[in-house]
């Protein structure tokens, strides 16, 4: 008699670790153009295939095909390419700058540029964005000068955070971009609350929030989904499945047995699994979800299937936990190259124009860095006044903080006088 099966602890492990051959057989793809595009008001129950297949528009021949083709004009595509390329070049430069010790920390979005850029372009300026830390592309789309981002990275005298937040934790109230949180996924229920407020006020603006697949394990994800469904909130909830959360592969977030998009229908929310490296597909599904939200049909969950080509941050070394050549073998390619090839195929772009654009943007980054460093660097130039840290704890400074500020001022002045005396 065969022994009775018994339960065993399953500890997920990625298909490949350093030295192993790359294996992306677990990433299921669908041919470009194959998925139908339902009406934006379609009932959730009819949308199940969207959560399990993969919405793709750009085919291997670099042509846009199928019902999800957003039919964007070439000039719009060129703007998208420009924003993605700027994001990439900015990231590259800031990475090098960190390695030179000129900034303390950085996080690149290499390989994921289409997610932020296409989504921000598909939304309206009044829509509120609740980003995670790999969404710098939204800043390019909404036109925040690089100098401002660099000043934040430098924590210098023009830092938008006044020296109080980690580098890359940008925010821009006037640009309708919320602060980035280091406590992951906390922005998800907050985005839903913002969307509830928009609905209560009778406005047709939508909220759009991003988390990684790793932090979809947080309770915030569940709470946000419940609240979004219960109140039919006009919100787009994005899970950027870039396969890796530092060294934790997507199987540890529950990606082995089901897609992340498939969680949507379980909550009564449409889930769309999209090729996150396909600018046109990301644009199209975002447009669909935004229109659905704006016209009263509620939230959408979008899973962007992409790959974190760079390290998690400047503080980790991915060669310790994944094969070095994974990105080269990533089945969905490179988002910048794919949009570029599409424009070339349309006769609207060329290698020469691309090289010229890259040169122009490189120069823009260089010029911006020069400008930013005028406001102070880690070692030289003007410095933030320690006094500033007592401001903005409350709108009005309470007496105890005034007292603590006065005490610090006195201590700093005494220390300065002592140094002066020693030198004298």
């Amino acid at each position, binding site marked *: 008699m065969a022994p009775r099966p018994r339960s065993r602890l399953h500890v997920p492990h990625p298909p490949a670790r350093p030295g192993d051959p790359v294996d992306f057989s677990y990433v299921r793809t669908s041919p470009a153009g194959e998925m139908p595009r339902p009406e934006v008001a379609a009932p959730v129950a009819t949308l199940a295939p969207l959560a399990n297949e993969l919405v793709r528009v750009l085919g291997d021949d670099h042509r846009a095909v199928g019902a999800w083709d957003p039919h964007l004009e070439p000039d719009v595509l060129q703007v998208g390419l420009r924003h993605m390329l700027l994001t990439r070049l900015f990231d590259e430069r800031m990475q090098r700058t960190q390695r030179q010790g000129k900034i303390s920390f950085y996080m690149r979005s290499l390989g994921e540029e289409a997610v932020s850029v296409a989504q921000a372009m598909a939304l309206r300026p009044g829509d509120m964005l609740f980003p995670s830390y790999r969404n710098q592309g939204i800043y390019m789309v909404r036109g925040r000068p690089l100098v401002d981002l660099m000043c934040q990275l430098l924590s210098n005298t023009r830092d938008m955070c006044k020296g*109080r937040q980690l580098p890359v934790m940008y925010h821009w109230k006037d640009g309708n971009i919320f602060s980035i949180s280091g406590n992951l996924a906390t922005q998800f229920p907050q985005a839903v609350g*913002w969307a509830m407020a928009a609905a209560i006020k009778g406005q047709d603006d939508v909220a759009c929030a991003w988390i990684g697949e790793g932090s979809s394990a947080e309770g915030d994800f569940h709470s946000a989904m419940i609240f979004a469904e219960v109140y039919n909130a006009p919100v787009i909830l994005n899970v950027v499945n870039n396969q890796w959360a530092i060294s934790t592969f997507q199987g540890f977030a529950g990606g082995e047995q089901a897609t992340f998009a498939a969680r949507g229908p379980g909550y009564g929310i449409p889930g769309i699994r999209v090729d996150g490296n396909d600018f046109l597909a990301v644009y199209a599904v975002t447009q669909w979800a935004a229109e659905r939200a704006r016209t009263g049909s509620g939230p959408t969950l979008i899973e962007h299937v992409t790959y974190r080509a760079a390290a998690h941050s400047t503080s980790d070394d991915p060669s310790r936990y994944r094969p070095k050549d994974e990105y080269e073998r990533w089945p969905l390619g490179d988002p910048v190259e794919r949009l570029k090839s599409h424009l070339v195929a349309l006769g609207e772009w060329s290698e020469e124009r691309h090289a010229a654009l890259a040169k122009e943007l490189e120069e823009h980054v260089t010029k911006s860095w020069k400008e930013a460093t005028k406001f102070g660097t880690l070692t030289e130039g003007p410095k933030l006044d320690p006094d500033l840290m007592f401001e903005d704890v409350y709108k009005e400074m309470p007496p105890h903080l005034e007292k603590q500020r006065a005490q610090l001022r006195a201590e700093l002045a005494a220390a300065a006088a002592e140094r002066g005396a020693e030198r004298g």
Partner: protein
Amino acid sequence: MSARQTYRDALREAHRSALGGDPRVLLIGEDVGRYGGSYAVSRGLLDEFGPDRIVDAPLSELGFVGAGVGAALGGLRPIVEIMTVNFSLLALDPIVNTAASLRHMSGGQFHVPLVIRMATGAGRQLAAQHSHSLEGWYAHVPGLRVLAPATVDDARGMLGAALDDPDPVVIFEHAQLYNVDGTLTAPGGDPDIAHARVRRPGGDVTLVTWGGMLPRTLAAAAELAEAGVDAAVVDLRVLRPLDMATVYESVRRTRRAVLVDESWRSGGFAAELSARLMECAFYDLDAPVERVATAEVPIPYARQLEEAALPQVASIVAAARRCLGGSA
């Protein structure tokens, strides 16, 4: 002359007035709608203001506090009701890591005008998961304003002021106070959310307390008065930012201080008060500061155990006598 009303009624009136006066105000929480809230504060408000303003929430503190933060960012003035302080621990992340810190972290760009109300404290046989006094934890966090209304006036007056505050405010309503009644001294109650109040003047010893311990401390003062001891009672009302001036002023006169704190002794809020008295009123004191606090155990269920764990009138009186030495 206004009629007597309960603390609960005063809170309800404060909500009614806030909701009626500002279309941005809404109340969200578990069972706040048809049921009227777990302590019946919002009873009747659903019919008056509708389900968009009195919003029943799914059972997720993380969700409705997080959504409250988002709604505040979206231009509304949400009041979030949490059933009990113990459940608020499920929402510490949006409260501490976002609401309290955001104005500062964002260089002053974003702020969270959110009011969070919750029941706190023991004495109703609700055991360890519904009875703790954690307001001292919240009072530790920069960026929050922490209120402990203990009277009908404060129940009526503090909510409106909290909603006018551009920063997040956490209001602790002691569960034993809801049925306490009193008379408003002004039609809108006391809208001050910055200062302590002397609830009973006295010259022999200063009893400092807040929230649910106020009635008990006043009872202890009355008992002391019968024995010829004239005890002052200071109600802190606001735990952050803390108004110590009122405390120092009283201690300067009485030269003795007893701190009555329903939380656990070690690391409790009374420890902070005691340290401040050491720093700023040491030479005004004729005796060591006394603390009356809760036994350092999870609050038990059985009545006699719960009573034994909590500060009682007798323990406050005894502490005052110790502080007065042989003179009382």
